[in-house]
């Protein structure tokens, strides 16, 4: 970075980070929280492998994979909205933000269908430790998706580079957490 202007002068160690420095504090803290949950899941799985294996068979990894593709495409739309805002193409930025929100809603619909399927089969958070983790981790992530959708709606209304960059950073955090959660809960068996 030497020789280049810092993106956020006056923010101490955070001044070298692009976008809103406080959003990076949130990203780092959220990543640490999820890392702790993932570690707890891995530990519990090692303690009761047979139960986790049997329970994991009830999940649909294709639905999870589809949701990964949807969320990553939504992330692309948000990143393109930042590009458009930076070029002062506000109308185009709002179109990208709307596309991103549409895909985010699509993610939620797929997740709700998945929850409904599991609940109809009598699989609740109280069924066993695996389903406790499954509902806990995915619902915590789901709450982040809903909050992110609210942020995206807000910056679609109040479109400025700072606002869109900040909301985009949160949305990418939601992407990042799902990228780590998907193989842990759905794929590794």
């Amino acid at each position: 970075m030497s020789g280049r202007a810092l993106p956020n002068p006056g923010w101490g160690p955070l001044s070298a980070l692009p976008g809103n420095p406080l959003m990076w504090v949130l990203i780092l803290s959220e990543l640490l929280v999820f890392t702790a949950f993932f570690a707890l899941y891995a530990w519990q799985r090692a303690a009761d492998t047979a139960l986790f294996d049997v329970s994991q068979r009830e999940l649909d990894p294709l639905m999870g994979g589809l949701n990964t593709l949807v969320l990553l495409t939504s992330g692309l739309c948000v990143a393109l909205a930042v590009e458009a805002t930076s070029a002062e193409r506000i109308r185009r930025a709002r179109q990208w933000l709307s596309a991103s929100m549409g895909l985010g809603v699509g993610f939620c619909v797929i997740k709700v269908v998945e929850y409904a399927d599991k609940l109809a089969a009598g699989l609740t958070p109280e069924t066993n430790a695996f389903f406790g983790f499954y509902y806990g981790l995915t619902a915590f992530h789901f709450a982040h998706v809903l909050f992110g959708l609210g942020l995206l709606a807000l910056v679609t209304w109040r479109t400025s580079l700072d606002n869109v960059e900040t909301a985009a950073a949160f949305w990418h955090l939601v992407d990042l957490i799902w990228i780590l959660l998907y193989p842990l809960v759905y794929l590794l068996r």
Partner: protein
Amino acid sequence: MTAHPGTRRLLATWATLMALTVISMVSARLDQGDWQALPLWSAGLVLAATGFKAQRLLMVYLNLRAATPAWRGAFVGLVVLTLALIGGGYLVARLAG
């Protein structure tokens, strides 16, 4: 002002992320009707693809490439730690089971 990645780089990254997701799903042998534990190489491939996806997302979507090497290292290090914990737990479960 921070330099943004540019449309071409974003599209290339998106294509990479989609391809890696499909590779993860294929590695996890979702096409097989019967449920079986993954061979260790499959699990390793799933984790490697996940790590590369997280790195691409951090560097391009979150534009961490514009930050200092220390910040890049800190975030990539945290992702590697997370994957090591996931992989370690998985390995212990597999070897014990």
